[in-house]
């Protein structure tokens, strides 16, 4: 059980990184990762919502299957995620205003982050157990955090120092950078975890 959880988590962070090998959550990745602080904030918010959503959606999935409504999965999951994000936002605003202020703008964006829905759907597809799902969600979020932070670091340097052809300025060179990081992350695929 424990070894399974460790291997699921490690592979979700490294070998099967959501951004670099599964292509989930690219929009905030390209859009937000301008500087490191915002990237870290976004990554933490996503990790938090993702673990929570994995836990809640596991029960929702159980309920839908029991009622024979499995075809409503997508609809139910996105509603759960949207309301969860709303609740988290309200809770933080009331209780931890400092965290709310630093995450503020990123929270509503998480609803449309396909990494969150992706993690939940993948869990449902695999039919994982409760703890496995939660750890997978958390680890996938951490993988997202790792990727977005790494990328922000590279991009900060890119903006200041790099010279590139005019037509590659902006998004194209960022995507090519991401391609090279993805290539590096492929190295983790050969790793045998437990």
């Amino acid at each position, binding site marked *: 059980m424990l070894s399974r959880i460790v291997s699921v988590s490690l592979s979700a962070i490294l070998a099967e990184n959501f951004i670099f090998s599964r292509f989930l959550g690219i*929009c905030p990745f390209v859009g937000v990762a301008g500087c490191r602080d915002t990237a870290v904030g976004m990554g933490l918010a996503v990790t938090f919502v993702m673990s929570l959503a994995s836990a809640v959606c596991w029960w929702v999935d159980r309920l839908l299957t029991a009622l024979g409504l499995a075809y409503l999965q997508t609809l139910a999951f*996105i509603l759960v995620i949207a309301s969860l994000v709303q609740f988290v936002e309200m809770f933080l605003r009331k209780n931890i205003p400092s965290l709310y202020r630093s995450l503020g703008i990123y929270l509503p964006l998480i609803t*449309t982050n396909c990494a969150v829905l992706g993690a939940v759907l993948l869990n449902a597809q695999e039919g994982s157990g409760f703890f496995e799902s939660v750890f997978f969600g958390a680890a996938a979020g951490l993988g997202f955090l790792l990727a977005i932070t790494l990328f922000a670091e590279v991009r900060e340097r890119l903006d200041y120092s790099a010279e590139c052809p*005019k037509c590659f300025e902006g*998004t*194209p060179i960022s*995507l*090519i950078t991401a391609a090279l990081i993805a290539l590096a992350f492929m190295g983790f695929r050969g790793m045998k975890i437990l």
Partner: protein
Amino acid sequence: MKLGRIFREGLVKNNPVLSLLLGLCSTMAVTTSLFNGLGMGLSVTVILCCCNVCISLLRRLIPDSVRIAVYVVIIAGFVTVVDLLLQALLPALSESLGVFIPLIVVNCIIIGRAEAFASRASVPEAFADGLSQGLGYTAVLVIMSVVRELLGSGTFGAGVFNGGAGWQLFPEEYACSYLILPFGGFLTLGCLIALVQHLRTRRSSPESREEGGAC
């Protein structure tokens, strides 16, 4: 008249992927072969048209404060319909697109068009906008998947043409299989956007996006 302009906007000027950078996840993830790219593009186009029409019809009934939630429910409904239809009619496509079909729900193109256009336009305009944005998205997917499939596995149109076999244009062992992997997705899209930026700066009129020869 106005519809013509809407079409030009979606296909070239305001192309959802190349200009607005929306829907990047699916653009890179599914374009490993023409079959997948075309299937994904057309599915999104169908969903986009249905959602735009539906939202345009309901635009006076939806209260402003909960509009995003309503849009999400409408979109998720149509996505589920398309998902089930694909599972029944084209199981091969449904299998290879996997989780990316239900993920159309969070594709920013659809909710973006609902918010920016369909909630304010008449039904025919909303339909035309959905069609043109969807086809603009499909065009990018087709270009990317042709390039990646050709260079990555040496085939053209496997699963679509020639009775499903496609054409093997050169032996697979000469192909650069890295282009099929995630690395190739980022690289091809980067080159494609660079090509478009180049064409835009070279001539003021941003016409004719030819095949991505730059990569």
